[in-house]
């Protein structure tokens, strides 16, 4: 329900304050607001007084109007100078605190991409939502995979840019439970205004549960059973940012739709003289799909731009991540609709992972040994009946 009155939203200025940095910011903001407000009304009051007092009357000439007054000039130089110096000191001191993370801050890695954020938590879990613990300071380690971005959480009063080629740190300590919007504030192209997510502040227990779930996406958190790869792939489609550019219903997005992508004749603008045909064998298609995720610029489909960032950080580097890639590709293949009445023609479901196997593989904290990289097929556990898995278990 839209509130049309601008004044009745729990105060005109600022939104909810939910972090220690918000308390520091708001104290300075209101100081500046009241002082500048005073000077604004002073100027306006003087102006209106003069406007009324000295309006032109017939036959009247301004008499003895002063043309300069050095004392007054110095006064209205020195007093504003004192005021702005105070603003500077207050603002800089609070900024320094906002810029210096405490020793106990937990580090969350943030990769900004067109057009989503990928958060990597201390236990290696990844996702596009920011989960936080109340009263636990966190340092966000921001970097960008493509162009400039910025991570902004109004309720915490924090904002830093994600600059390609650099790492920028940002820390804060949430103090209130709740869900708060997160924005990208540095213009980054077509999907800029869609590059939003949420920060959810949880209490300790809920946070631990959430982290455990997030760390093992191969397990259904409710049924405590392994999920089929295709269902995991479907979750990843939503949480890894694929859905920003690729549709699954056949409509054209920033990138090609995934519906019927598998074994569809492909023409490429880069490199120009290569094609991929439905008749090409499975291994060639598998290699192509893997490459499109990890090295998207290697082959660019005709009619689309070379804008997709690489997903190496999310989908390669550890056995766990390799398995995620396998699940991802499994989901893409499941969307081939060449069979009768939309059923897959080429796609043959992979077996569901054995129960404890997936959960027993702890995700690597940061970038596992690349030497352990194996063919995704080789990691697959023995066959089990395929689960239905049309819907991912994780509901937002």
């Amino acid at each position, binding site marked *: 329900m839209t509130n049309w009155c601008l004044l009745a939203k729990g105060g005109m200025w600022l939104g909810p304050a939910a972090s220690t940095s918000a308390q520091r910011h708001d104290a300075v903001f209101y100081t500046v607001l009241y002082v500048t407000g005073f000077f604004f009304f002073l100027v306006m009051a003087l102006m209106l007084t003069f406007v009324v007092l000295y309006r032109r009357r017939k036959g009247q000439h*301004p008499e003895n109007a002063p*043309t300069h007054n050095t004392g007054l000039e110095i006064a209205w130089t020195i007093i504003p100078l004192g005021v702005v110096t105070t603003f500077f000191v207050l603002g800089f001191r609070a900024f320094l605190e906002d810029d210096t993370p405490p020793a106990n801050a937990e580090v969350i890695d943030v990769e900004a991409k067109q057009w989503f954020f990928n958060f990597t938590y201390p236990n290696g879990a990844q996702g596009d939502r920011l989960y936080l613990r109340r009263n636990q300071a966190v340092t966000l380690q921001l970097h960008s995979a493509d162009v400039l971005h910025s991570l902004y959480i109004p309720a915490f009063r924090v904002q830093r840019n994600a600059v390609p080629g650099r790492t920028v740190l940002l820390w804060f300590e949430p103090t209130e439970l709740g869900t708060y919007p997160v924005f990208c504030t540095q213009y980054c192209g077509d999907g800029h205004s869609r590059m939003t997510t949420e920060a959810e502040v949880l209490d300790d227990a809920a946070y631990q549960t959430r982290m455990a779930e997030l760390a093992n996406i191969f397990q259904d958190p409710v049924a405590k059973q392994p999920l089929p790869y295709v269902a995991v792939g479907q979750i990843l489609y939503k949480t890894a940012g694929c859905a920003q550019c690729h549709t699954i219903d056949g409509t054209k997005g920033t990138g090609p739709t995934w519906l019927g992508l598998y074994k569809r004749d492909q023409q490429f603008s880069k490199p120009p003289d290569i094609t991929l045909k439905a008749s090409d064998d499975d291994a060639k298609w598998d290699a192509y799909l893997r490459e499109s995720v990890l090295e998207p610029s290697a082959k660019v489909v005709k009619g689309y731009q070379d804008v997709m960032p690489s997903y190496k950080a999310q989908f390669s580097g550890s056995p766990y991540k390799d398995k995620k890639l396998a699940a991802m590709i499994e989901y893409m293949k499941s969307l081939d609709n060449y069979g009768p009445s939309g059923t897959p023609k080429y796609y043959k479901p992979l077996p569901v992972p054995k129960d404890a196997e997936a959960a027993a593989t702890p995700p690597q904290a940061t970038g596992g040994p690349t030497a352990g990289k194996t063919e995704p097929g080789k990691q697959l556990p023995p066959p089990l009946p395929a689960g239905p898995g049309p819907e991912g278990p994780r509901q937002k």
Partner: protein
Amino acid sequence: MASIPVEHFPHGAFPARGDDYLSCRRGLLSWAFTLDHKRIGVMYLFAVLAAFLLGGIFAMLIRAQLLKPDGLLFHGATTGAYRPYNQVFTVHGAVMIFLVLIPGIPAAFGNFVLPLMLGAKDVAFPRLNLWSYYLFVLGMLLALGSVVFGGVDTGWTFYTPYSTETSGPVILLVSGAFVLGFSSIFTGINFIVTMHTLRPRGMTWFRMPLFLWALYATAIIQIIATPVLGITLLLLIFERIFHLGIVDSRYGGDPILFQHFFWFYSHPAVYIMILPAMGVMSEVVSTFARREIFGYRFIAMSSVAIATIGFLIWGHHMFPNGQSPLLNAIFSALTMLVSIPSAIKVWNWLATLFKGSLDFKTPMCYALAFMSLFAIGGLTGLYLATLVVDVHVHDTYFLVAHFHYVMNGGVMIMFICAVHYWWPKMTGRLYNETWGRIGCLLWWIAFNLTFFPQFLMGTQGMPRRYATYLPEYQSYHVWSSVGAFMQMGAAVLVAGYLIYSLYRGPRAPANPWGGSTLEWTCASPPPPDNFKTPPAVGRPYDHRGLEWDEKTGGYVRTNPNTGQ
């Protein structure tokens, strides 16, 4: 002993047809090849107003899009659906900055008024002046070509690496801005040389009207800062074509370096925009208060101070990009410092109203509107200079609102003020005062309705350059859009009565307002060579002896202004 310089046109007589600069020669070629600073000023004014209309139309598209959270004009399931919106705000920004705000007052009114105010026959280099006009037109065509050939979606700031990667005619728009830069530099050189060499006897530096001081400070920024923009834009073009790897991170460059280069010009550029507006303010306030300006030297020197400090504060555009706290502290402190000369000006204008004899003609109404809007725009700059506050409101609608209060509420309001103030001098016609005041009031209300809600939603976190937004911000956006449409209405009204005055307006006297500077001693419109003999130069704001004359409907000087 100086005489009263009305020798061409004794009171009661308007210049005969063929005597003024507008009618002395006829035909398109007489305009295309003119070297007369007044005609060039009028041609600039025409081009700038056309660009203003275009930028305004794009502003209306922005505001129409934002009426609905999902977007009214451009919406869809895929991100590509929002590209047109991004192109629209890029065109709005680029046109308003490069084609309206920067050339607006200095090129149009600077050209027209500077030699008249100075008491000179023309600028120092009339041919260079015409050349700079044609460069402006060329730059304008290049920039508008980019709209025709597909549109650019980089934002007017051209931040790398997005600007080096995105498709579209980025190079065309950037080349346009590059050429416009040269036009600006040539104008700046011309003005500086004119003020150094063509001052008549008696026109000392401290007798120059404050508008000229403002133009001088502006010209210094134009010739020092604009080359840096030129280099930066060339670098961007080369980066796009040859992938040099200087500012594009994909090839090993550093995007922050581009921001330093870009803002080293583009921050001083906001003073290229606002300083002339402040100069107009000083003229108008003094004329309509009918008294000497208060604190002449402080106002003159504050222009120079703004131009100097303005070069040292570009880093405040980059507070949240991870630069070192030391750098942030230095830029924050210097930014605080630049507010002082602006504050000095405001206090002096205020003091000029004190014990004046205030005549609320249309230009004076705009001047009072400017006082209120510039006060808000300037004071909210302090929020953005205060580091911890900037970290919250940076790149939100708070910044958008601050910028528009200074640029639209400050510069453009003073540009419209200047149009009204010098309209009788330029065209020889008077417009309708009642409609003028109504237009000003309407514009002021519409302006505040547009931009004040943006401060509120900015502090509540609404990011800028968003084609879609969360529903909780909708009420602010709707108010803002309604205000924007009202502004367009006010602009149409103003254009309407001004155009009407060209055909049906009464003839303007030489000095309709009681202005004390030299341009009011020429006839309206002035003769092609301005002054037959060098005019007598006295103190710039001496209103003693200026008396209302019923016969001509203007003011005449009854005593010689000898500068005593």
